[in-house]
């Protein structure tokens, strides 16, 4: 299936783009998606995957077995003030 994935801040830097469409196997889980992103974009993305939030269809998901939806947002946190 095709998913729309949006990258923010350090995630966009790691991916070299703000968003893209990815073809991913039907029934793919969050952990599959994370592995795909790391394979695709390397160590910078690995850091993002470790600390960043993954929102699936607008809801943050932590369960690695959660199914990937049509829209995924990758948002790294930062705390500077």
């Amino acid at each position, binding site marked *: 299936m095709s998913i729309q994935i*949006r990258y*923010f*801040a350090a995630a*966009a830097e790691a991916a070299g783009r*703000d968003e893209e469409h990815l073809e991913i196997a039907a029934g793919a889980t969050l952990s599959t998606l994370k592995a795909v992103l790391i394979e695709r974009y390397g160590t910078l993305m690995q*850091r993002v995957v*470790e*600390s*960043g*939030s993954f*929102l699936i269809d*607008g*809801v*943050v*998901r*932590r*369960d690695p077995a959660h199914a990937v939806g049509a829209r995924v*947002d990758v*948002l*790294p*946190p*930062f*705390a*500077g*003030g």
Partner: protein
Amino acid sequence: MTLPAQSDRQPLVGPGAPLSSERLIRYSRQLANPDFGEIAQRRLAHARVLVVGAGGLGSATIPALAAMGVGTIGAIDTDAVELSNLHRQLAHGVADIGRSKLESMADTVAQIDPEISLIRHDVWLDSSNALELFAGYDLVLDGSDNFATRYLVNDAAVLTGIPVVWGAILRYGGQAGISWSGQGPTYRDLFPVPPAPGTVPSCAEGGVLPTVCAIVGGIMCSETVKLLTGIGEPLLGRVTTYDALSGRFRELEYAVSDEVDAVTELIDYDLFCGLTPAAVGSSGAGDTSKTGGSAEFGETSGSDAAGGVSDEIDSRELAALLSTEAAPQLVDIREPFEFAIAAIETAELIPLGGLEGRLADIRTDIPVVVYCHHGIRSERALRLLQSAGFTNIRHLVGGIDDYSQVIDPALARY
């Protein structure tokens, strides 16, 4: 009359006493805004808001809130003004260096409007005082500089039922939103758990473009005024992100997540953020290590209570070692501009970014010590060298900043 921008949301604060003509003149340009008017202005005058942090975002919000007529503003900070603050913390000036930021801020506010009450909370916000402090305010602005404080602010606001207008900045980017339990999602619905220590740099480590403070601080003030007066559509359930390099704002919508733990009480936020008590204690001596936002993360990473100790060295031990015949190779992995500010004698400069290409310069016949500003990048350098096969490497805990405080005050701090 209701404009499309008008929400059904109730104003957070009731209107205070009618305004004097002098006040009406002062606020005439904002009173002229559609749907604003004198009642909205009286709500602002009657409002009590608390600002966590008088640094970059505090400087961008507190004077603006005061100027707009928010009657009572509390500010929490324990830092003193430093030279390296002045490029972005426009509430402070050269004459304020060394003064407490709260004192300096009080002067700035008094110059804008002496009738605004700035309440100085010269305390380190923690689980023991947060609920009591928050109970005295209608709304909190979070411009703090570390994750432990951000989760504390969120949770204390959840428990007291008040909204948080939060902003965060790093390098060329900013984020802002509203966290309000019961009315919408909270900060935890966006970031359920903090990142591992050392994985996200602070502004001291990663840098920050000053104008990002102004932009994010401006958004925070707008959201504050909107909530207090009930105008517009609050940034609730949405986070807006700003990238100065592209000049682009992007928005992300989010809802309450069922995978987020409910907040029932305040916890130990240092522990929650992976900061061990020992490391917090050892790095908490100076103000920089607390609200400078640099030492909270990374100081502890790789050194869980039992293991990892052997690849760390502290300032005293390094000083002793450097004075012996068997001095180690000392490698400064900071950037050249930092090396030019101050460097420990005998150190060689090999910036972290180029370290992988200069492995041949790392000695294997004698011990090697790597250091940086606060001990965060050097920990990364240590891991890099270890994974490249080097075994006799240690990194300086607390970096040159700690070394300056403990051993050699002649080394300029920044």
